[in-house]
């Protein structure tokens, strides 16, 4: 099943839940509403037509400074962007960040029997950064969601053990948010307890 067929199959099954879709560079991607994530994920995992038995990756993107990078005034217009070659499947152009929400939680699913991959994107608002946990469906979600919480401060409803994983408990803030300065240091000094 190619990316377009897969997206169509997901759309047919969940006409209400799928808000947008694209297959930029051949990666099948559907954008879902936050409320329908758990139901869609469960169906994708358990339905014989999809059998997405692997949750390969959970991550998030902070779109708050997307396209706002300052170039030195000299060079503003001198950058060259490359257009794709005809060998790479590129049926649909990339539609841009899904919605106007600050965060997007990104799930990469893989189906072992069908060998197809699907990316789920769920926009999450900054002032209500909470989303359903998938840890009841996949064991992999446990640590991956902890990492997203640690790095982006997005909470996962229903996660049994949502604590920091890479950073230490005393760490303040969430380092992969765009407003966390890259050179900000928080030394952990001395014994803490």
């Amino acid at each position, binding site marked *: 099943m190619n990316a377009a067929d897969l997206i169509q199959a997901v759309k047919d099954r969940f006409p209400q839940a799928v808000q947008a879709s694209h297959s930029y560079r051949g990666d099948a991607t559907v954008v879902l509403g936050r409320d329908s994530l758990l139901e869609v994920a469960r169906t994708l995992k358990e339905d014989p037509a999809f059998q997405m038995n692997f949750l390969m990756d959970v991550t998030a993107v902070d779109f708050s400074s*997307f396209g706002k990078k300052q170039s030195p005034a000299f060079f503003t217009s001198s950058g060259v962007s490359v257009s794709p070659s005809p060998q790479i499947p590129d049926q649909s152009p990339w539609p841009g960040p899904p919605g106007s929400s600050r965060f997007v939680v990104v799930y990469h699913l893989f189906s*072992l029997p069908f060998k197809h991959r699907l990316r789920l994107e769920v926009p999450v608002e900054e002032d209500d950064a909470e989303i359903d946990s998938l840890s009841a469906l*996949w064991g992999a979600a446990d640590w991956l969601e902890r990492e997203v919480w640690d*790095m982006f401060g997005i909470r996962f409803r229903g996660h049994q053990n949502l604590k920091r994983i*890479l950073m230490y408990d005393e760490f303040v803030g969430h380092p992969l948010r765009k407003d966390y300065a890259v050179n900000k240091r928080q030394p952990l000094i001395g014994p803490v307890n």
Partner: protein
Amino acid sequence: MTQAIPPAALTSRSTPGQVETRDMLLNIGPAHPAMHGIIRIIANLDGEQIVSADVEIGYLHRGFEKMSETVDYNGVIPYTDRLNYVSPLINNVGYCMAVEKLLGIEVPERCHYIRVIVSEISRITDHLTCVGASAMELGAFTVFLYMIKAREYLWELVEMVTGARLTVSYCRVGGVKGDLPDGFAERCHKALEETRRVLRESDTLLTRNRIFVDRMSGTGKISAEDAISYGITGPFLRASGVDYDVRKDCPYAVYDRLQFDVPVGTRGDNFDRYLVRMEEMEQSMRIIEQALRDIPAGPFQTHPETGRPIPAAEMVDQAKVGNIQGIVDTRAVTDPTLDGSAKPLHLFIGADEKRVFLPAKEDTYGNIEGLMQHFKLVMYGHGVRPPKGEVYFPVEGANGELGFYIVSDGANSPYRVRVRPPCFAIMSALPKLLIGDMMADLTPTFGSVNMIGGELDR
């Protein structure tokens, strides 16, 4: 830091007529010789049996993903070296192929073959380290020394190709740094021969060794369903009987043209993982041999009759007497001190896209076009600028699926780089692997996970 479980929470067991026992909390790591790298396992023991375990990671977190957002696309490559530092070349390849997918460019076939060869060399070094270190922890120190010896031969190859042993930074967006050096195939065959000998010796020392088998067999078991649920991939998953290999199932580069088998275990225990890794090394060597056979011609061409490189002076002499048969399309081997002699190393390995691939140094220093091309790629504010978009690209790392998810906003540095580290998934399943086993089984189980701190904590 995780709060230690207070003693009151530990279960005390008393059965009539027996002495009351109480569970013991044992803190293993972060600095412990058997914890490769830094990691802390908090095990709750009933006697010698592990009742529950908590794993704490993050001691080697260096902010790979954050740093990647601050440098240009080629600048991320040195950071990827430091992800899985036992097989850095596979990380290089995975990242570069992800950016190439984002750009939509194709690299030449020879470059694909080179990437396959160096990836497979790295896979062997990774498996050698894993098996050797696990064997050492079970008392088989000789095997460790043998395997490190074999790894040394392979790292000499890596050094020959990349100029470094660990911090290789060999791939570039749109190609590789330079072509394979002269005489590489010959050296490679010799190194593989030595590796095969070491593997035979190690196989004799381990596979039917009573002590080794008793400690590996039946410990650290995980079922195929659990392994899939935890997102485990690579040799660890295949030992549980699932034949998922990115090289076979989602082939990239030229893996679909090469013949190799995917070894699969049946029991999902430490011993099966050992067997799978041993067989994978043999399969990787098969791949390297086929790739060396099939690789399109490169800059070093030999005389069709003598099989030796033709010196430039000899070529001129032959051409003067009109004897151009066989050498008309052949490049001469020039003195290495001669200006421009290294230029052929850059002829066949880069994408034909001047806005992406760095020119050969001879061009940068030798002509104005090369200089401009170089400057347009390295100067602050310029560089490779992929169109806006997002891609995910998986390759088969030594521990499993190594995926890069990259988001571009059209600027010269990535907007977001996410790496899916294969041993992260395996480590998250570690408590499940340990529970019910004996304390002494922790060492072989943890050894077979092949945890690489740089990749786990990023």
